[in-house]
C-alpha cells in the first residue's frame, strides 16, 4: 500500500486486507441521521449571515468532512487473518492493533442490513464473550468474504474442539426436575417479599402529578374537612377516648401491614407461579410466571459462581435462595440466573451440584477478617465527627443534645461495622473459593478456582501501613472480593488459586462441546 500512510505497527510484514470500499458509502448513508445535529447547526449558522448561498455550501462541507473522516479511517483499517489469530488494526491518530486468537472466538455473526444487502455487503462480528461488549467488527465486507471468514473460523475451531477434553458432569439426556415450587411455597415467598413500595409509588405519583389533581394532595386540613363532610368530626375522634384512638391507630397500622403483604404476595405470584427448574442436555431450564410465562435455558458450562442468599428472618425457617452468576450473553438484564428463589439448603445444594459447584463440606475453613480493617474504618470516621462536635460546641445554642445525637450516630456506625465483621467470612479449599458477607442480606458466594479470570491484590494507604490487603477476583458476570486479609495470606491464597487456574484454559471451561 501507499508508503505515505505507513504507520502500521505490525512489524510482521503482513499487510492484511482492507474492508470493501463500497462499505464506506453504506456506512456514510446509514450514519446520516447522526449528522442531523451538525447539519442543523450549519444551516442555522449560515442563515445568520444573510447569504442564502452559504447554506448549501455549509451542508456540503459538513457532508464532505464526514465522508473524508470515514475515508481516512477506512484507509487506516486493516484486518489480517493469521495462522492462529485474527488481527484488526485501526485508528487515525491512535493506532490500535487487536489480536483475537481463534480459540477465543465464540461466535461469528453475519448481519446484512437492507442497504448493505442491496450492495452485496455484510457486517461480520467476532464475539469472544469478553467482559466488555465491543470485540471486533468488520463493517463491511462482501458476503462471500464474510462466509469465507466464518467457514475459516469454524474449521479452525473444529480442529481444536476435538482435542478439548472438558471435565463434565454426569450426562443426562432426559430432563430431570431439579426444583419446583408449589402454590404454598410461592405464597410463603410472597410473604417474605413484604413491600410497601406501592405507597412509595403512589406518593411519588402524587408528588409528580399533583398539579393535575383538582385539590392540594398534601393539605391535611382539607382531608380532615373531607372526613367531616362525610360525618366524621375531628372532635368525634378526639372524643372516643384513649382506647378508641389506640384501636383506630391499630386498625390503620394493620391495614398498612396487610397491604404490604398483599403487594408482596401478588407480585410474587405473578412472577414466580409454577416455578420449575429442570436439567436438560442443554443445561438448566427454568419456567415460571402466571400471565407471562418465561422459559430460560442456561448452559451448565456458563455457570461461573453460585450465590446463596438469605435474610435474618427467613433463615430461621431454613429458607435460602440460589442464584448462578453467568457469562451474561443471552440477556443483558439478567446476569444472575435465579435457580431457586426459596429453597431449603438440601434442595439448593442439589441444584448447585448439578452446576458443578459443591456444597461447603467443612474443609473450606471459613475464617474471620482481621478486626483491624473495621477499626481503621471507625477511626477514619472520628476526625470529621470531632470537627463537627467542636463546631457545635462553639456555634450551636444547645450543644449537648446535638452532640449526643452525633455520638449516637457513631454508636450506630460502630454497631454496623461490628455486625459486618461478625458475619464476614472467607475461605478456600482445593476446588472453590468462599466469601460470606452481610448481616441483613446474607450472601455466600462460591466460585470454583478454574472460573477465576484474574486476581488482583490491592492496598489503600492505610492497608499498606497495617499490612492488610483486599483480594479481588475477576469472575465473568460477578465479583468476589475478599477483604481484611493480612498480606501474606492474600499472597498465599493467590498462589494457591493461580496454580489451579493455570492448568485449565478458558476455552475448555466455557465452550459448549
Amino acid at each position, binding site marked *: 500500500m501507499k508508503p505515505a500512510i505507513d504507520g502500521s*505497527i505490525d512489524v510482521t510484514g503482513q499487510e492484511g486486507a482492507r474492508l470493501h470500499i463500497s462499505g464506506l458509502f453504506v456506512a456514510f448513508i446509514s450514519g446520516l441521521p447522526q449528522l442531523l445535529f451538525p447539519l442543523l447547526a450549519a444551516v442555522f449558522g449560515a442563515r445568520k449571515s444573510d447569504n442564502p448561498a452559504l447554506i448549501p455550501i455549509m451542508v456540503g462541507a459538513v457532508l464532505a468532512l464526514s465522508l473524508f473522516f470515514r475515508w481516512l479511517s477506512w484507509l487506516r483499517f486493516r484486518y489480517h487473518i493469521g495462522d492462529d489469530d485474527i488481527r484488526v488494526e485501526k485508528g487515525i491518530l491512535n493506532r490500535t492493533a487487536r489480536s483475537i486468537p481463534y480459540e477465543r472466538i465464540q461466535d461469528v455473526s453475519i448481519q446484512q442490513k437492507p442497504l448493505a444487502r442491496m450492495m452485496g455487503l455484510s457486517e461480520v462480528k467476532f464475539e469472544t464473550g*469478553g467482559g466488555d461488549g465491543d*470485540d471486533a467488527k468488520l463493517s463491511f465486507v462482501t458476503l462471500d468474504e464474510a462466509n469465507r471468514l466464518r467457514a475459516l473460523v469454524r474449521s479452525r475451531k473444529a480442529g481444536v474442539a476435538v482435542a478439548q477434553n472438558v471435565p463434565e458432569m454426569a450426562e443426562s439426556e432426559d430432563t430431570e426436575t431439579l426444583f419446583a415450587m408449589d402454590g404454598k411455597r410461592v405464597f410463603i415467598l410472597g410473604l417474605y417479599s413484604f413491600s410497601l413500595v406501592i405507597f412509595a409509588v403512589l406518593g411519588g405519583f402524587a408528588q409528580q402529578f399533583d398539579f393535575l389533581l383538582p385539590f392540594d394532595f398534601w393539605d391535611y386540613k382539607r382531608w380532615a374537612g373531607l372526613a367531616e363532610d362525610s360525618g366524621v368530626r375531628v372532635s368525634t375522634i378526639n372524643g372516643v377516648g384513649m382506647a378508641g384512638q389506640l384501636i383506630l391507630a391499630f386498625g390503620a397500622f394493620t391495614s398498612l401491614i396487610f397491604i404490604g403483604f398483599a403487594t408482596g404476595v401478588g407480585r410474587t405470584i405473578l412472577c414466580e407461579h409454577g416455578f420449575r427448574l429442570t436439567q436438560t442436555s442443554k443445561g438448566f431450564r427454568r419456567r415460571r410466571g402466571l400471565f407471562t410465562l418465561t422459559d430460560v435455558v442456561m448452559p451448565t458450562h456458563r455457570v461461573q459462581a453460585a450465590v446463596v442468599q438469605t435474610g435474618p428472618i427467613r433463615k430461621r425457617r431454613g429458607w435460602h435462595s440460589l442464584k448462578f452468576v453467568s457469562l451474561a450473553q443471552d440477556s443483558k438484564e439478567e446476569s444472575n440466573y435465579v435457580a431457586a428463589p426459596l429453597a431449603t439448603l438440601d434442595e439448593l445444594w442439589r441444584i448447585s451440584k448439578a452446576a458443578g459447584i459443591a456444597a461447603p463440606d467443612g474443609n473450606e475453613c471459613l475464617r474471620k477478617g482481621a478486626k483491624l480493617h473495621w477499626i481503621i474504618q471507625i477511626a477514619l470516621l472520628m476526625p470529621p465527627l470531632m470537627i463537627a462536635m467542636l463546631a457545635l460546641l462553639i456555634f450551636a445554642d444547645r450543644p449537648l443534645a446535638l452532640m449526643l445525637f452525633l455520638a449516637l450516630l457513631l454508636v450506630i456506625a460502630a454497631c454496623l461495622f461490628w455486625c459486618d465483621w461478625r458475619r464476614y467470612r472467607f475461605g478456600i479449599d482445593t476446588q472453590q473459593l468462599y466469601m460470606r458477607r452481610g448481616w441483613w442480606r446474607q450472601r455466600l458466594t462460591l466460585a470454583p478456582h478454574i472460573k477465576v479470570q484474574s486476581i488482583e491484590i490491592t492496598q489503600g494507604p492505610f492497608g499498606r501501613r497495617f499490612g492488610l490487603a483486599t483480594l479481588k477476583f475477576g*469472575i*465473568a458476570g460477578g465479583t468476589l472480593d475478599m477483604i481484611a486479609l493480612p498480606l501474606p495470606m492474600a499472597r498465599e491464597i*493467590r498462589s494457591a488459586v493461580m496454580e489451579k487456574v493455570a492448568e485449565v484454559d478458558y476455552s475448555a471451561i466455557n465452550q459448549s462441546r
Partner: protein
Amino acid sequence: MTDDAPPELTPLDPAFITTSRIATALGLLPFVIGAAVLELAKLLPPGSFLVPMFLVYAFVAFTVPARKYRHWGYVMGTDQLRVVRGYMFYSDTIVPFGRIQHIDVDQGPIDRRYGLSKLTVHTAGNHNSTVTLPGLAHADALAMRAAMRAAIRQEIL
C-alpha cells in the same frame, strides 16, 4: 509493606516518564490558561492565581510521572502476566494467559514518537476486564503479544 518495587519486577521503558510528562503537561494546559485568564482579570493581587497553579502544574507534570514510573512494573511469566502499580493505592494483578480473551497494542501520537506502546489484555471477568500496561518499548509489546498468543494456542492443544 515496604517492598514497593520487588527486584524481580521488570520496569517500564524509561521513555515512559517523558511521554507521560508530555501527556499530562498537555492535558493540564487548559487549567494553566484558565489561571492566566483569571490573572489578567485582575481580581486578586498579581500572582495569586498563576503562581500556585504553576507550582501544582510543575509538580503534577514533572514529578508525578517519574514517581508513577518507579512504582509500575510487570512480570512476564511463562503462563501469566503480572502487573504491579501504585504506591499509595497499590495494586498487584495477575492475569493467566489461559484467561486472556484478546490483546490490544495501542500507540498514540506521543507514544509513536518515542517508540512506545500500550498493551491491554481483555478478560471475561467483570472486575479487571481490561488490564493495561503502558510504556513498553514497541518491539517488547509485540513480542509479549506473540508470546501470549502462542501460549493460548499451546494450552488448547
